[in-house]
């Protein structure tokens, strides 16, 4: 195993929307490398569909304060309001900037960027659904990813494609660089860099039914967590209401934004009972809970009564073709149903982590609940928790988050690099990773301790015990299961001992991150004895602002989790009962 050393000022880990946006900001000012375990264009930003909100007011009166209000209310008042104001205010310039870089938005007749309705976005603080989501058909994420990558190509940004970062070097509380594994050769690469941004995305693969890519295994949060950095608000995991039945493939909320309706087995538009004013366009946590409730009450469709229908049949072929071409193609491809004529079987699917690496509004990573900054380390996008999404993210705000806070991460890297001198990284910086890999290579393969078995049990049990509805009982049970899985993981083995494209080795390392993500999710959820946003406790059904208007910080404590808390930063909006 060769160890190759590189020297950069800054390194960005991950080449989805947040990583690429950070790179565009930082590249002109430093020697920068973007490291990704995929090719940049394979990143999961490309799977985002419906849109990116900004109060452009192209269709109707709008302003960013209403966007802020909706985001805070949607977050069930857990988001930090100063951060939300930044998100919503900077949204407008962010969309315009993407357009200037070539993003092919769909257009209105007057040539302006088209905007559509989306869940939880309203005008005048709840009066009616708002046309706020800027979109490019139902492939907005694809277009953002392509546009940002194109911009990076035009700037000559340095990429290390199919290099997987697996370690960070922090000496005396200061970041010195990262260590990566080159997938094609098995070589280890040590990247000296004093500014490092983690933009590694989410970790939806802790659940069985998920809209997430196979690659979304929580690498960035996992690497930092194992170094003692806490993870914030891990109990808040979003289940998107409309995943394709059993497969979990995402069908955008844009389908409902364009007029699609959810129906139970009797054809009833059940969201009228749960959210009388905005119905099917209620925020995702509420719609997913409504679907789960319908199913548990026997109103689900199909032989097992375990799904509901997304009905687009009244929209007409032309609207579907123009505005929802991709998702309707997914339905034709995977379910063999024609959505113009037939309703689509859907169920909630694990979709988005509101929690993650704690950061301030400048994407600087915090190493404790007091807000101590970890010098040189940044995070943006789904891997980070600013927190702008609080307990429940509104649709379209993730694409916004990646560009607004991706840019801020890039700016922070520039500020830091320009005010510090290069550090030198010790010669043996690659040793820890080398040893970890050698352990897997040297240990004889035992099929009873294989990665897929442990991972499958992890995903099945998380689905069973820590999904939409949770209880002390289910979470305690899951804690025990996770502890057993962790024990078995200590003995996990792989059969491939080769150097070239040994993805079995990488799946083994990623499995540890999945265990870390599950541990912190379950521990934080067990402790939070209230229901807020996506975290629904059947044994504590009310939101409890007097005790729980605070963010959780989960620290690694041996093989268990230690929790600390930080108060929510309020602003213009006092917590109120959340009704739609």
């Amino acid at each position, binding site marked *: 195993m060769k160890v190759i050393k590189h020297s950069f000022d800054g390194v960005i880990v991950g080449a989805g929307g947040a990583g690429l946006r950070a790179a565009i900001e930082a590249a002109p000012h430093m020697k920068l490398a973007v490291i990704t375990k995929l090719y940049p264009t394979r990143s999961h930003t490309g799977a985002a569909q419906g849109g990116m909100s900004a109060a452009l007011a192209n269709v109707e009166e709008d302003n960013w304060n209403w966007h802020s209000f909706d985001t805070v209310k949607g977050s069930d008042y857990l988001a930090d309001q100063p951060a939300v104001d930044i998100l919503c205010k900077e949204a407008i310039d962010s969309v315009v900037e993407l357009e200037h870089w070539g993003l092919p938005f769909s*257009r209105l*007749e007057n040539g302006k960027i088209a905007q559509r309705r989306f869940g939880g976005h309203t005008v005048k603080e709840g009066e009616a659904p708002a046309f706020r989501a800027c979109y490019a058909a139902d492939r907005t994420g694809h277009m953002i990813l392509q546009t940002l990558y194109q911009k990076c*190509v035009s700037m000559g940004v340095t990429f290390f494609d199919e290099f997987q970062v697996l370690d960070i070097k922090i000496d005396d509380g200061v970041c010195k660089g990262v260590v990566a594994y080159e997938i094609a050769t098995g070589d280890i690469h040590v990247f000296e860099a004093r500014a490092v941004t983690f933009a590694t995305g989410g970790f939806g693969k802790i659940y069985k039914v998920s809209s997430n890519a*196979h690659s979304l295994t929580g690498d960035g949060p996992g690497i930092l967590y194992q170094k003692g950095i806490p993870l914030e608000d891990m109990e808040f995991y979003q289940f998107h209401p409309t995943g394709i039945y059993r497969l979990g493939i995402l069908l955008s909320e844009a389908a409902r934004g364009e007029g699609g309706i959810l129906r139970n087995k009797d054809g009833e538009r059940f969201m009228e009972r749960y959210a009388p004013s905005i119905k099917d366009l209620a925020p995702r946590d509420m719609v997913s809970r409504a679907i789960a409730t319908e199913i548990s009450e026997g109103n689900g469709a199909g032989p097992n009564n375990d799904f509901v229908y997304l009905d687009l049949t009244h929209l007409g072929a032309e609207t579907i073709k123009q505005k929802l071409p991709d998702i309707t193609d997914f339905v034709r491809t995977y379910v063999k149903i024609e959505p113009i004529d037939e309703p689509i079987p859907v169920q909630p699917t694990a979709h988005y982590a509101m929690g993650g690496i704690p950061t301030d509004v400048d994407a600087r990573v915090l190493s404790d609940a007091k807000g101590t900054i970890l010098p040189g380390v940044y995070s943006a996008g789904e891997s980070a928790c600013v927190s702008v999404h609080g307990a429940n993210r509104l649709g379209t705000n993730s694409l916004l988050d990646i560009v607004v806070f991706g840019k801020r991460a890039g700016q922070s890297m520039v500020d830091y690099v320009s005010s510090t001198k290069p550090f030198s990284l010790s010669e043996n910086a690659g040793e820890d990773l080398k040893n970890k890999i050698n352990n897997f290579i040297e240990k004889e393969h035992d099929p009873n301790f294989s990665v897929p078995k442990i991972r499958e049990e992890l995903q099945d049990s998380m689905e069973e015990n820590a999904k939409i509805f949770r209880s002390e009982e289910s979470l305690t049970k899951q804690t025990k299961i996770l502890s057993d899985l962790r024990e078995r993981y200590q003995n996990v083995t792989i059969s491939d001992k*080769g150097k070239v494209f040994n993805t079995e080795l990488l799946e083994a390392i990623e499995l540890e991150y999945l265990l870390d993500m599950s541990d912190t999710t379950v521990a934080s959820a067990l402790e939070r004895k209230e229901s807020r946003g996506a975290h629904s406790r059947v044994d504590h059904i009310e939101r409890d602002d007097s005790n729980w208007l605070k963010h959780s910080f989960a620290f690694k404590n041996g093989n268990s989790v230690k929790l600390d808390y930080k108060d929510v930063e309020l602003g213009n909006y006092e917590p109120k009962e959340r009704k739609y």
Partner: protein
Amino acid sequence: MDIKLRILRFNPETDRKGHWEEYNLEADPDERILDLLHKVKWFDDGSLAFRRSCAHGVCGSDAMVVNGENMLACQVLVKEVSNPIKIEPIRGLPVIKDLVVDMETFFESYKKVMPYLINEEEPGERERLQSPEDRDKFEDTTKCILCAACTTSCPVFWTADTYVGPAAIVNAHRFVFDSRDNASKQRLEILKDVNGAFRCRTAFNCTTACPRGIQVTKAIEDVKRETLTIN
């Protein structure tokens, strides 16, 4: 149902050339080809190498040759292909291991056509305007996910990897026909080159292969015609 899966395997650390291996699997007709590959990798032979990420046809990682045709393994169901199922790496690019090929020349060709918006004019504080009709002119080619299914189905590319290939031309088309872009002439000069659009012999393999349904051959023809407008 019982499935016979034949995979062209190659491990550069132990093999001098590729060889077929056969796997007998139990599969649901609604499963994806990618699910079958995972079954082999996870429960039979962990060393099987293939790329994959999103598993629903939008990231472009898992283009491969299934029963002789280029497709995304995650986009085709077991019931849609004949059994036994033969899987090979996409053609015309060097094989690294099993179903993984070296994509470098592919991305180099992509970068040659300047795949980014070029417009030096000050755009102002708000978005540039573009009519829905102008936007529609390049709608089809914005869908490209750079999976290489088109380029590696092209018989011209098989014989000469210096040819930029269908995917690069598709990505040139996406900017050449964008009313906001000012660099069509530069791109078309590149595509007039001996390794540019005119190497295309309209075999239409690319159009059949595109998992996004892009009319690739038509886009290439559009670009060829457009090069005639510059001199």
